[in-house]
């Protein structure tokens, strides 16, 4: 049977190629396979961000989570620490759970990061696949769509700079409100992360957000229609094209086998733990190998394998940016540092070569 409605590639992107790394701040394990403390995990992430810059990674993103396994609830503070020790790498959230946050505060935190980092801040807004922040901050999951719609609209206004007048049902109105700090050189880049809802694609197009396709399982090709939808929506609105990015999980080691053997048991264990609350099926070795293969969503393997897969999928999806979500609960800080080094020194140059 045929799959997507039409298999032709989306038109090539006219934006520069950006190759980044994202982390959800998974707690790492020490040499005795015991979890390290939250504080240690966070300090290690600062080191990982600094290394990412040293090895030539373009972007470093931190995904907000609120659980014992993923203790990175204040990503912007960690990004600020990385900013202080780096000069070039772009820094952002991946994602900020905007629905359970205050858009004014998100703007303030990331425009502050933009100031600290000399204009290197970005945000990716979305829900993520976890929902822990809703009960934590007193929001009702049933209001999710309305919360996101209103807050994405307000955040789009805030990003433009200048006094904001806004009225909605989920937050107090603003009237000619100046929100500080002002950014130095215009709006910082902002994206909406989309996991499969076309309404979110339309929303991103309408409010001038770039599109980040979060592809965490199944065939990347099935997202190609979303890229077409985004471009056509922008065209219909009479607006300029905006970049499209891809976020997917991965792990790089010296060989395919080493990468798989390091990653699979941790991946299986993490999914097993969340399966009960998220409704995921626990991966088998067979399903894992399918995801690692050319038609799956995982970028796990040697630098050559991972680079080839990135270079194959970006044009297919009309995307100019790839963010590999590295790390998986239980891997060691050392294994992550090694993966970052290989990603920067081997994968990135190879992707650039393959796509040039």
């Amino acid at each position, binding site marked *: *049977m*045929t*799959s*997507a*409605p*039409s298999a032709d590639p989306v038109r090539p992107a006219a934006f520069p190629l950006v190759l980044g790394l994202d982390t959800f701040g998974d707690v790492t394990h020490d040499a005795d396979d015991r979890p390290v403390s939250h504080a240690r995990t966070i300090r290690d992430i600062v080191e990982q961000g600094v290394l990412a810059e040293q090895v030539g990674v373009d972007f470093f993103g931190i995904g907000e989570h609120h659980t014992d396994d993923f203790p990175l609830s204040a990503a912007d503070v960690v990004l600020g620490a990385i900013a202080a020790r780096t000069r070039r790498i772009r820094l952002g959230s991946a994602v900020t759970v905007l629905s359970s946050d205050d858009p004014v505060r998100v703007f303030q935190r990331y425009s502050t990061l933009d100031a600290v980092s000399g204009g290197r801040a970005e945000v990716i807004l979305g829900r993520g696949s976890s*929902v822990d922040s*809703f009960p934590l901050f007193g929001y*009702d*999951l*049933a209001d999710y769509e309305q919360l996101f719609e209103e807050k994405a609209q307000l955040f789009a206004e805030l990003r433009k700079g200048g006094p904001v007048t806004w009225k909605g049902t989920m937050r107090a109105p603003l009237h000619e409100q100046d929100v500080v700090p002002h950014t130095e050189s215009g709006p910082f880049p902002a994206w909406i992360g989309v*996991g*499969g*809802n*076309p*309404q979110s694609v*339309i929303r991103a197009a309408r409010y001038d957000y770039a599109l980040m396709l979060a592809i965490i*399982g*199944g*065939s990347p090709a*099935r997202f190609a*229609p979303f890229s*077409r*939808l985004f471009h*056509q*929506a922008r065209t*219909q609105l009479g607006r300029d094209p905006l970049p499209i990015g891809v976020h997917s999980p991965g792990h790089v080691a010296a060989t395919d086998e080493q990468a798989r053997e390091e990653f699979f048991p941790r991946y299986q264990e993490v999914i097993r733990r969340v399966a*009960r*609350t*998220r*409704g*995921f*099926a626990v991966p088998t070795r067979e*399903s894992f190998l399918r995801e690692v293969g050319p*038609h799956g969503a995982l970028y796990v393997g040697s630098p050559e394998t991972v680079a080839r897969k990135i270079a194959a999928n970006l044009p297919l999806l009309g995307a100019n940016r790839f963010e590999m979500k590295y790390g998986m609960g239980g891997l060691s800080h050392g294994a992550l540092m090694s993966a970052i080094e290989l990603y920067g020194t081997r994968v990135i140059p190879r992707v650039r070569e393959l796509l040039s």
Partner: protein
Amino acid sequence: MAGMGDDDRGAGAAGPAATTILSSRPRTAVLGAGHTGPVLARVALAAGYPVSIAASGDPAKIALITDVLAPGAQARWAADAVADAGIVVLAIPLHRFPDLDPALLAGKLVVDTMNYWPPVDGVQAMFDDPAYGSSEIVQRRLARSTVVKTLNHIGYHELEDDRRPAGAPDRRALGVAGDDPAAVRAVADLIDRVGYDAVRLDSLRAGRLLQPGSPVFGVPLGRTEFTRALARTHHTDRGSS
């Protein structure tokens, strides 16, 4: 276990009578244009069904989504889409279901693809009763419709990729549960033509076996494994009577 056995219209079993049934592909109305709606529309179109798609409100709002993601489907007002449909597929988030007017669906065969999944979607008063399956509650509210439960236990992201022709050794099975045998048959035909083996369950009550937490929920299984997993669950399900 009655009704949980093999589909009587399996590969190679199509005689002249079955051929007549096979030729009927009722217009299908998909309600919802979020994660699942466009995918359902696409696979139903590919299976030869005429498809309408509707969201809440003006079809102009989903015209582009329909054109790009489900070309061939007609974006319509919900009332129009339902009016001439033989099968109506509910592809809305469960928490929106209480807003749906039961009169809209009166007299219709309604496919319930929704799940009650409090950890992800929050607690909902209407569905928070462990004595009933979510589709039984849907049926109770849609008292003048005929509800069939299916497609709730496969990810929307798998629905397209996992399709296989009848008889393929790796063809995945999907449960189809309902109280009305003719309605179950019509939906089982749809499932089969889309590309899955339909395993029929003879009541919505039995459809509880397809809910979140069940061993078939989200797991790709062939017909034999699927039937076996259901049987195991059935026998150990102390809550059922």
